[in-house]
């Protein structure tokens, strides 16, 4: 049996227990709702999006540690009921996930995590849809090499251009876009976190060595001439391992600006989510609609440099 951490003898031989705590898997949280595509990001609700009809709030089984977002829960699920530990396992591999955090009184069987934490393996292809709007990268996929975002669109769509509103960990917030904007985030940086470019198609590239500087970004498309776009084509995200996340752009309401996708760094893992929302107004309104309210604007398309 795993000893009850509240009464267990201290283990001075395990030095790390003295200074490192492992976040315990929490009950379905705002973050889980977000990953499932059913709610706004816990820290960055976007006001424009109508609140999704939330399911009746389930009674929270335990005071969930809302501060510790543990998306790795599927890898180390906490057993709902104390399961007998096979004795053969005990001496060599210590179940650290149970030990450090004093657990609350035995909770009723926990509601299984409801979010579908879709993952991606190298070379694989995943489609983002409004029914399955998110893919979560592992910590390895989120921080090795670079992540490429490309708007694969034919000229029939119109003069579609790509950009992104972003917020960095230090609070710095602005936009990047190749067409008529600032190409680097942060601007004039020797080591940009995001680079906007135009090769065969409009694109954005993230330097994942610096992923910890990125808090969130919202990828938008706009018409350079402000003529309505005939939405089509696909937004393609390519990981360093060659996996592709594809978001078809048909189905957007007619307009000149749309927020296509958002990317959040949640506890070291990048969550990529389809947004697919046409915005009335221009880039400024698109950024504001998604909560990028720290950007100051020169006009409706470009921030103050």
């Amino acid at each position, binding site marked *: 049996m795993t000893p009850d951490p509240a009464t267990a003898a201290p283990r001075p031989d395990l030095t790390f227990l003295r200074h490192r705590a492992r976040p315990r898997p929490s009950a379905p949280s705002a973050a889980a709702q977000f990953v499932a595509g059913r709610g706004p990001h816990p820290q960055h609700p976007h006001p424009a999006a109508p609140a999704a009809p939330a399911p009746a709030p389930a009674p929270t089984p335990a005071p969930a540690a809302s501060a510790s977002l543990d998306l790795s829960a599927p890898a180390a699920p906490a057993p709902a009921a104390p399961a007998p530990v096979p004795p053969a396992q005990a001496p060599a591999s210590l179940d*650290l996930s149970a030990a450090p955090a004093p657990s609350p009184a035995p909770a009723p069987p926990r509601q299984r995590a409801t979010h579908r934490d879709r993952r991606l393996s190298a070379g694989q292809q995943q489609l983002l849809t409004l029914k399955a709007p998110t893919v979560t990268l592992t*910590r390895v996929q989120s921080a090795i*090499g670079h992540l490429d975002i490309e708007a694969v669109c034919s000229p029939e769509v119109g003069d579609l251009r790509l950009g992104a509103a972003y917020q960095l960990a230090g609070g710095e917030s602005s936009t990047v876009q190749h067409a008529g904007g600032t190409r680097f985030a942060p601007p004039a940086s*020797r080591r*940009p976190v995001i680079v906007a470019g135009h090769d065969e198609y409009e694109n954005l*590239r993230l330097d994942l*060595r610096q992923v910890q500087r990125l808090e969130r970004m919202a990828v938008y498309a706009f018409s350079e001439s402000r003529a309505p776009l005939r939405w089509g084509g696909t937004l393609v995200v390519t990981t360093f*391992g060659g996996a592709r996340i594809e978001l078809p752009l048909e189905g957007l309401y007619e307009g000149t600006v749309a927020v296509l996708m958002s990317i959040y760094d949640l506890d070291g893992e990048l969550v990529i989510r389809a947004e697919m929302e046409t915005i009335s107004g221009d880039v400024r309104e698109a950024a504001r609609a998604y909560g990028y309210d720290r950007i100051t604007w020169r006009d409706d398309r470009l921030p103050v440099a």
Partner: protein
Amino acid sequence: MAEMKRGANVALTREIPGLAGLVLGMRWNAGAERVLEDSLVFAAVLCGADGRARSDRDFVFFNQLASPDDSVRQPEPALDGDQEQIEIDLPSVPPEIDRVVVVLYVNESPGQRRTLGQLRSCTIRVLDARDRRELVRSEELARAFRDETAVVLGEVYRHGGDWKFKVLGQGYSKGIAGIAADYGIPL
């Protein structure tokens, strides 16, 4: 203690009874190459008997600071004058893990290609976690680098009932992608 050449190994736990915690310390000098300096990543891979990682969780680096069992960790910041460190608590390394490999790679950042050949120096050393005393140190590894963008510096591995450390200095021109392919790290 004498410098260890590539391929040399030392029986750590046999020569130092009671040794349980290791610190692998990384030191490099990129000179004025700031982009190279900023793109370097020091990491560890936990490998099974087949020489491959069990999953992405077996890759310990700046965005994943500990292995699932906490036996291998990257402290932030590094101490002892090293630029980066990896700590290994030998008794808590799971039995199915045969070796812990430490690597250095240049992250492929947008539009900026740098190689390890631009490093002026690069050494790895092993400390005793109890008193932070240096046990062994590799020879200067940078001299052999050309256009490599990743290198397997060395490994801590089981041998009989003991743990040994070996200096490898094996370069990869395909960078971390090449290492990931060889060691089964899912990218």
